[in-house]
């Protein structure tokens, strides 16, 4: 189920699969809260080292799921970045704002929403428990 998300040759594949799994496992209340907070559909256009491109969509408006391919209804924001950038973003090494400033991240559409991507990725990350 998360295997169909993966695209070989992309490190981000694992990440996306991880995000999908995290959303799947999230308790409903938390998921609903996350959706409410974000309220947008992110389309991620990721380019890897071999100049291949893969597209994923994170739907944080209605369903809270991740799927491969462009957004079914229109995406609220399209984020164009490289494999490496995405990985750094997800691990917390790079901050969305910084990535944008340095040009590692490009957006089309609702730019403000792109700032929320950080939050989404973080929510998908396994959280350390108190």
């Amino acid at each position, binding site marked *: 189920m998360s295997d169909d998300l993966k695209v070989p040759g992309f490190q981000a594949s*694992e990440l996306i*699969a991880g995000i999908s799994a995290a959303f799947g496992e999230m*308790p409903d209340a938390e998921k609903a809260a996350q959706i409410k907070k974000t309220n947008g559909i992110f389309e991620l256009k990721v380019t890897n080292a071999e100049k291949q491109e893969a597209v994923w969509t994170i739907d944080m408006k209605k369903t809270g799921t991740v799927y491969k391919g462009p957004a079914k209804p229109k995406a609220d924001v399209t984020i164009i970045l490289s494999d490496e950038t995405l990985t750094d973003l997800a*691990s*917390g090494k790079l901050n969305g704002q910084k990535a944008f400033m340095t040009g590692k991240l490009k957006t089309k559409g609702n730019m403000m929403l792109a700032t929320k991507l950080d939050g989404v990725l973080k929510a998908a990350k396994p959280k350390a428990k108190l």
Partner: protein
Amino acid sequence: MALPLLVNSADCGPVNPLQGLSKRFDQDRGLQQDHFASTSRAGPSRETFRSSPSQATNGNGNLEDAARFFGASASHGQQPHLAGPAAFDLSALHGALPAPMPMHMASSGGNNAALFQTHTQTQTPPAAWAADFMQFSQPGKQVERAVVSPSLPQQQQWVSPAHSPSPMMFSPGMQPMMQNFAPPMHMQQQQQQMQQATTQHDQILWDREFDTHLTSPTQSAVQPQSHAPQTNPYEEADELARTAALLLETVGDAQTTNLKFQNSEFLGLMRGLRDREVVVEGNEVVPNTKWAEDFQALDLKGKGKARTVDLAPLAAAPRVSHREAAQRTSETIAQMVRQEAQQQGYAPNPPSVSLGMAMTEAFRQRAAAEQSVEGEQEDPNDAYFRQENADYQRYWAAQQQQASTSHLGAAANPQTAEWAHLQTDWEAFEATSAGIKPVSQYIFQRNNPYLSDTPSLTTRHHLAHGGRQPMLDSVLELEAEVQRNMTDASAWFDLGVKQQANEREKQALTALARAVELDPSHLPAWLALAISHTNDGNRTGTYDAVRQWVDRNEKYAPAVARHWSAHPERVDAAIGERFSALIQCLIEMARGDASGVVDADIQIALAVLLNTNEDYEKAQDCFRTALAVRPDDWFLYNRVGATMANSGRAEEALQYYHRALELNPLYIRARFNLGISCLNLRRFEEAAHHILDALGLQESDSVSSGADSASGVTTAALWDSLRTASMHMQRPDLATFCDRQDLEGAFRRLFCF
């Protein structure tokens, strides 16, 4: 007589009556809020009627009159009430007739019948169409009732079926008049709408619950509030029957062979109870009468019974005597069990005795629960649910104990299946009603070896070590301890904390919730509950738990009181505000402590709140302060580490985790957190190792009885993380093991390569 006058003359100056009305409306709203407040904590508001029987009875008796009087006025006011639960689309309701109102009241099991009554009284009846309405009201009633009853279970579609017949009947005259009154009523509706929003949930839940309880809503329409007392005793009688059946089963074989058993009075009683020939009514056991047929199909929650449950509700029993009856019955049963044991001169068959005890306990607890309900300390529905759960769980526990006895083997399987089905339903119930959660059940592990030990030995063993060191006990031991003393709040607390440490949040939550229910003054339990809620991302839960901790903390009572009087809290304050208010309060408490010694608990509470607010820096500081006071508390090390990790400083977190693990190598949670941090640092091999260790520890801390236990004990989160790690390591073979949650395979794979 006066009322129709009122009705008719109301069309002079709608404003004044409205004003006067809104005054009364406010007054009533207080009452309403009482009801809603109590119901909003858990679903059904059945119990509310018990506290105001007069209201309900009045409403019932005068239902017909009321329909006529208030039918017209009906309430745009009433409509929103009903609309609230069902839909927000009030405009559609405007078209609907008030006629449905009284019907709805009746058929919705009188759910808010009393309230509706009071509200109708406070509504300004729209004047002009009142007369028209009265004409229609009579024929309307019958149809509406029929229409409404079948749609009762469907709260959502409720409104539409109600609408479809009504416009047909009333459309000619009504519409224009309705519209006239729409505007002035809007304002009322807004108010009501707000209130309704919260009750919507209750309504839905209530109705669902109600639906499961009654397949014949028409009957309920007639007797709305008698259902309130009915369903609870229902459960009791049913519970009795079930337990009796179980008892008989266990004694089963012996029954036929052993003459003593056959002639035994106690067993006779049990048989009677099971077959519903006798029923506990009031203070004694009397032969069952006629209710069986009426409620025939009621398979209460389908407890896997081959025999359908013919319920004999103790409809007549007033609550007070019910409680006494419960107590007395429990005593009687306990006596009988003991007598039997003596008479028979055999070592009491543990399962049957325990069952007897279970029943006794069930009654006592129910009685206790009802007492607390009367005192209104505990929400009646919570109590009800908890009782249900406690009983089910005891039933199940007893069931499990006999799992080894062969003659139950056959019976167990269909029941197991049914139970599993029930459990999923129950959990679904929990999951969907996000704001309202009935207490979930704690499922004890099967074949707990510690349980068969004689209790005295183990507890003495504990005490001999100079006070409990619960962290060093295994989960099994703690579970056994709890199973022996179901009402011991500290036992539940210990179990909860241990489950937290074992990274089993859900069970921890259940256990801790149980602990605070049993003993709301148990402060550490509240703190632990707050932590669990934080981990679950449940902000409100965290807030509530910490709030409870603060309010019940006697040591700081003056400081707390000072703070709340200085900063009065608005009930409808946003959650963020309330958080900051509470944080302020805690800070003051900390400052107010004159002794100069830092109270670690305050720091912990503060840090938990800050964590929820994602204020990680401050949270970290607080935890570290607490650490200064308790340098050997491995929990605190883990918490500092977790806070750091969550704020992105995974590297630094690592050393804290290591320290925690040094202090307690069995601390599964720290190990898992370590794994997560390694994941975040992209050190996948290490991460995998740590997580596997954690998994291994989890499994070892449980009853390992082959294939079935494994999946229940380990946490899915661990497997998921392991999977992520293995995928990052480009080891899809490991990932497949993770999917299957196969620890053996994963271990082998990882270490052999």
